[in-house]
């Protein structure tokens, strides 16, 4: 029986250690997970739901002490869940929506102009195809290095850089065209 007690004590200690690790992971990575989710979903409540889902999955499916790189693993799960949720929320076929945005009336002052431009830019970014938008957006998150973005997207680091560059180029062209239309 004493051997059984030792085994039970070890199991309890392991569970407590696992709980401590899990809590530490939440405190360390929750903000990053939230930002990744928000970068895809652009909604605070949805991003928080995804954040919760990421940690719930971590708790249910993985032994956290066995995850080699917690940050990369959680970033990847967060991105996948957010993309999945975004696809469900947004039906396909909206990729070219930004091109069809009707030109708005000229704002009288600079503030309105800035707001209008910012809204249009956001629409442009959202309208980018996913293979270009995801590297660009994830790269802007300060928590993730290009190497980690590459690991999340499962592409090479060079591909991350080239796609982000291409995305910026497209945005620049479309913004220029939009501004010319407004003149």
């Amino acid at each position: 029986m004493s051997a059984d007690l030792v085994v039970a004590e070890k199991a309890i200690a392991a569970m407590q250690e696992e709980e401590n690790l899990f809590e530490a992971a939440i405190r360390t990575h929750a903000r990053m997970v939230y930002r990744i989710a928000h970068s895809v979903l652009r909604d605070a409540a949805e991003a928080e739901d995804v954040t919760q889902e990421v940690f719930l999955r971590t708790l249910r499916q993985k032994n956290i002490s066995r995850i080699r790189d917690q940050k990369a693993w959680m970033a990847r799960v967060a991105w996948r869940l957010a993309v999945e949720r975004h696809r469900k929320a947004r039906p396909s076929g909206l990729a070219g929506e930004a091109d069809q945005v009707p030109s708005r009336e000229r704002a009288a002052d600079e503030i309105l102009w800035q707001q209008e431009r910012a809204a249009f830019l956001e629409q442009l970014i959202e309208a980018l195809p996913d293979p270009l938008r995801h590297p660009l957006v994830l790269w802007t998150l300060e928590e993730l290095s290009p190497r980690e973005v590459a690991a999340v997207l499962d592409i090479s680091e060079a591909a991350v850089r080239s796609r982000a560059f291409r995305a910026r180029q497209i945005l620049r062209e479309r913004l220029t065209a939009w501004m010319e239309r407004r003149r």
Partner: protein
Amino acid sequence: MRERQDIDQWLDEALSRYADVEPRPGLESRMLARLAAQQPAPRTISWWALAFGMAALAGLLLLWLRPALQPAPAPSTLWTAQLPPVPLSLQHTTSPTAAVRSERPRSVRVDLARQNAEAKQERFPSPSPLTEQEKMLARFVEDFPQKAALVAQTQTELYQQDQKEMARPWPVKEND
């Protein structure tokens, strides 16, 4: 050129809005609280399962070890000492009719004996205690094994002699 710089700046500003997002204060605490609220059932079950599992394991171990911990009963040397070996004269009969007659019953007997032996082995050690006579005999065999062997040998010889006598063809009277 100026316009290009402006556009790049606007792009950076737009992208920074993706990066500079701050969750509502207390995100970590909310996550911990929500996960704790969603997880209690499985956690409780696992603790109870662990406790019941340990108890069941201990019970099974006790059941398994119980026969081994009990003192084994003294071996029944009485039968080994008393039972003589089966005489050869019984196995090989000279009479052809006797051979034919004894063929089937003997095999049946052997099978039954084997079955009985197997049944005894399954029930070994026998739960019934030895009688006083058996205990005395067993003690005698243990204390004086040579004498016991001599007695057994003498009895075996006597038994064999009796069997030989019985196996002889019955003398037929001339009158018959």
